[in-house]
C-alpha cells in the first residue's frame, strides 16, 4: 500500500473513533410524553414535576415529549415499531390491552416487587388497579380517574327563571331545563344560546358523554356474557333516541353537532353559547383558561348526571405506561414512580383539578372538602366501563357512526342503531 493511502486510512479511522465516541454528558434522558403539555391548566403541574425531579436527580433528565390527544396511539405505535417511542407515554384505559398485546408496554411487576409488591400497590384504589392488570402482568399504575358530572352556568339558570340550587335530576327534568335555557338572548329573532352542549364528533370523548344515556335507559353494548351485541334491545334504543333527539327533535343543542368535540363544547360553555355540558373535573380549569374573564368557580356549578331508569355515569381514566423501547428502564421507573407519588398527585389535583386514584390523595381532607371535587368523587360508585375487548375499537366506531347518522338524519335512530348492532356482531365474528 502506498504511503498516502495508509495516511488516508489512518485519518478515516481516527475520524470514525471521534464521531462514534460516547458524548461526555452521560445524563440519562427520559422522554415524558403527554398531550397535556399544550393545556394551560396542566402545564404548570407538568413543569413543576419536571423541575423538581430534575433538580433532585442529577443523573436523570425528564424531557418534554408532546403528543396530540387525537393521535397519541398513532404516534406511539409508529415510534414503537421504530423502537424509538417515548419512555413514558400517556393513554386512556381503552388502549392499554391493545398496546400490551403488541408488545409495546413494559411489564411493571419486577419494579413493583422491588418496591414492596402488594404493600406498595395497596396505596391505590384496587378497582382502578385491576384495569392495569392484563394476562397476569401489570402494565401501569392507575393515575387519574374522573367520573363525569353535569356542569352548568348558574347565571344562565337565573336568567331562565331556574333555581341554580336545584339542577335537573331526571331526564325529563333535564330536557325541560334545556328547553328553557335555549334562548334568543339579544331578541333578534334567532336562537343564540342553547340548553346543552353535546359531543357528536368522531372522538373518544363521545363515548363518555353518550354512555350515561345508553346505560341510564337500561341498555348496554353487549349481552351479559359479552358475546353478542345488545344494541337491539328496547332499552338501548330508548337511550340512543334520548341522546339523538336532544338535537334532532328538541333543538336544544347548537347546530353543527357532529363537528363538536369535547374542547369545542367546553369552548361553547366558556363563552356562554351553551348552558349545560356533561364533563370531567379537568374541565373546570380548561373552561377557565378558555375564558379568563369568567370566574368559573363562582359562575359554574356541578351536579350528578341526570338519571334515567338507572343511576349510572361514565368516567375518564388515564394512566402512564413505560414503553418497551425505553433504553434505560430503571431510570424510566424512577421517573414513573415519582409521578405517582403523593406530592405530585396532590399537585395534579390542585393545579389541574383531576382526581387521583391514590387513596391518600383521594381521601385527603383537601380533596374531600373541595366544592367541585366532592361532587365528582360522590359519583365514583356509579361509574361503569365500556367492555374491555379486543373488538371494542370497532364496536365503539360503529356506535359513533350510528350516533352521527342519527344526529344528522342520515338514518332514523332505530335504523342507525340496528346497523350498529349488526356491525357489532360482525366485529365479534358472528
Amino acid at each position, binding site marked *: 500500500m502506498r504511503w498516502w493511502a495508509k495516511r488516508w486510512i489512518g485519518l478515516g479511522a481516527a475520524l470514525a473513533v471521534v464521531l462514534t465516541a460516547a458524548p461526555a454528558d452521560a445524563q440519562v434522558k427520559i422522554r415524558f410524553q403527554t398531550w397535556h403539555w399544550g393545556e394551560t391548566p396542566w402545564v404548570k403541574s407538568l413543569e413543576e414535576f419536571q423541575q423538581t425531579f430534575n433538580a433532585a436527580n442529577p443523573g436523570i433528565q425528564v424531557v418534554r415529549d408532546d403528543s396530540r390527544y387525537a393521535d397519541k396511539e398513532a404516534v406511539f405505535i409508529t415510534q414503537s415499531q421504530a423502537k424509538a417511542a417515548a419512555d413514558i407515554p400517556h393513554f386512556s384505559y381503552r388502549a392499554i390491552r391493545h398496546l400490551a398485546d403488541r408488545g409495546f408496554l413494559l411489564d411493571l411487576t419486577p419494579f413493583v416487587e422491588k418496591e414492596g409488591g402488594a404493600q406498595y400497590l395497596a396505596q391505590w384504589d384496587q378497582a382502578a388497579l385491576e384495569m392495569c392488570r392484563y394476562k397476569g402482568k401489570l402494565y401501569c399504575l392507575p393515575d387519574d380517574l374522573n367520573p363525569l358530572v353535569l356542569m352548568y352556568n348558574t347565571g344562565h339558570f337565573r336568567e331562565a327563571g331556574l333555581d341554580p340550587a336545584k339542577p335537573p335530576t331526571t331526564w325529563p327534568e333535564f330536557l325541560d331545563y334545556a328547553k328553557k335555557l335555549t334562548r334568543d338572548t339579544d331578541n333578534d329573532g*334567532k336562537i343564540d344560546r342553547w340548553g346543552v352542549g353535546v359531543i357528536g364528533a368522531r372522538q373518544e370523548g363521545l363515548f363518555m358523554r353518550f354512555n350515561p344515556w345508553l346505560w341510564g335507559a337500561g341498555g348496554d353494548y353487549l349481552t351479559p356474557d359479552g358475546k353478542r351485541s345488545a344494541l337491539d334491545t328496547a332499552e338501548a334504543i330508548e337511550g340512543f333516541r334520548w341522546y339523538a333527539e336532544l338535537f334532532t327533535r328538541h333543538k336544544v343543542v347548537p*347546530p353543527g353537532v*357532529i*363537528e363538536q368535540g369535547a374542547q369545542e363544547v367546553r369552548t361553547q360553555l366558556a363563552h356562554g353559547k351553551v348552558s349545560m355540558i356533561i364533563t370531567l373535573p379537568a374541565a373546570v380549569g380548561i373552561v377557565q383558561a378558555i375564558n379568563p374573564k369568567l370566574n368559573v368557580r363562582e359562575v359554574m356549578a356541578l351536579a350528578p348526571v341526570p338519571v334515567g331508569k338507572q343511576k349510572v355515569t361514565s368516567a375518564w381514566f388515564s394512566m402512564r405506561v413505560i414503553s418497551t423501547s425505553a433504553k434505560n428502564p430503571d431510570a424510566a421507573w424512577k421517573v414513573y414512580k415519582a409521578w405517582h407519588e403523593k406530592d405530585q398527585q396532590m399537585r395534579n389535583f390542585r393545579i389541574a383539578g383531576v382526581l387521583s386514584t391514590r387513596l391518600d390523595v383521594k381521601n385527603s381532607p383537601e380533596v374531600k372538602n373541595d366544592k367541585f371535587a366532592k361532587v365528582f368523587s360522590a359519583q365514583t360508585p356509579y361509574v361503569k366501563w365500556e367492555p374491555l375487548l379486543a373488538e371494542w375499537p370497532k364496536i365503539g366506531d360503529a356506535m359513533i357512526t350510528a350516533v*352521527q347518522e342519527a344526529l344528522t338524519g342520515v338514518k332514523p335512530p332505530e335504523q342507525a342503531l340496528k346497523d350498529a348492532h349488526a356491525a357489532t356482531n360482525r366485529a365479534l365474528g358472528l
Partner: protein
Amino acid sequence: MRVGRTWHDRHLGVLFVLPATVMLVAVLVFPAAVTLKLSLSPEGGLASWTLTLGHYRAAFTDPVLAQAFRNTFAFVAASLVGHLLLGLGLALALNQALPGQTLFRLVALVPWTIPDVVAGIVFRWVFNPVHGSLNPLLQQLIPGFPPDFSWLSSPALAFPSVIFANVWRGYPLVMVMLLAGLMAIPRELYEAAAVDGAGRVRRFLHVTLPGLSTIILVALALDMVWEFRRFALVLTMTGGGPGTLTEVLSTLVYKSYFQFFTFEYASAVAILMSAVLFVLSVPYIVLVGRERT
C-alpha cells in the same frame, strides 16, 4: 469496441446508481414488503411465516370498505374535474400579458403552499355554523339565508364541502403545468389561426386544447394519484363523517391501523389500495414512456 475497457469502465455506471438504489430499497421496497407480509399474517403473527388470505377475504365483505372505495372514486373524480376547470381557467387568465402578472401567479399558488392539515382546520372553521365565516358572508349576499346552516353536518353537503376545500387546495398543481404548456404553444399558431378568421373559441378549441392535450393528460394522471391518497384534509374536516359518508380509503386505513389496532387488516386494505392506484397510474406511465421514445 470492448478492447481496453477496465473494471472501472464496466462497473462505474452500477456504482453511480447504487446509492439511489439502496435508498429506494430502504424507503420503498422494504416497507412495501413488510406491509405485504403483514397483510398476509394472522393477527399478531408478523414474526411467524404462517400466511393467510383471511384479511383480504374480510376486506372483500366489509361494507365500510366498499363505501370507502366508492367515496374515494367520487372524491377523486370530482376533485379532478374541479382542478382541471379551475386550473385551466386560471392558467388561461395568468397567461395573458397583464400588469402584475407575476404577483397574480404567486397568489394563485398560495393554496399549494398550505399543508393539508391547516387547510382542513381552516375550512372546518369556515363551514362551522355557529362561529364560521361562510354563513355570515352568504347572509350578506343572499337575504334570508339561514344563519345556522350546517355544511359538514349535512348528509347532502358534507362530501361536496370537502371536495370544494380540496379543489381549492389542489388546483395549483394542474394550473402550473397547464400554464407551462400554454407558454410553450407558439404565438405564430394563434396568429395564423386569426388570419384564417378563427375567433377566440375556435382558437381555444383548435390551437390551445390540442397543444395542451398531452399535458392535460399527464397533469390529471399525476393529480389522480395525489387525490387518491388524500388523507389529512378529510380527516381534519369530517373524520369520515357524518357516519361514514365521507370515509375514504386513506382514512379507513388509518382508522383500521391506529384506532382499531388491526395492523394486518389495515395492511391488506393498503395493499388493495396500492393495487388499484397502480392500475389507475398505467395511463400516466404509458404517456411518460411515449414522451421519452
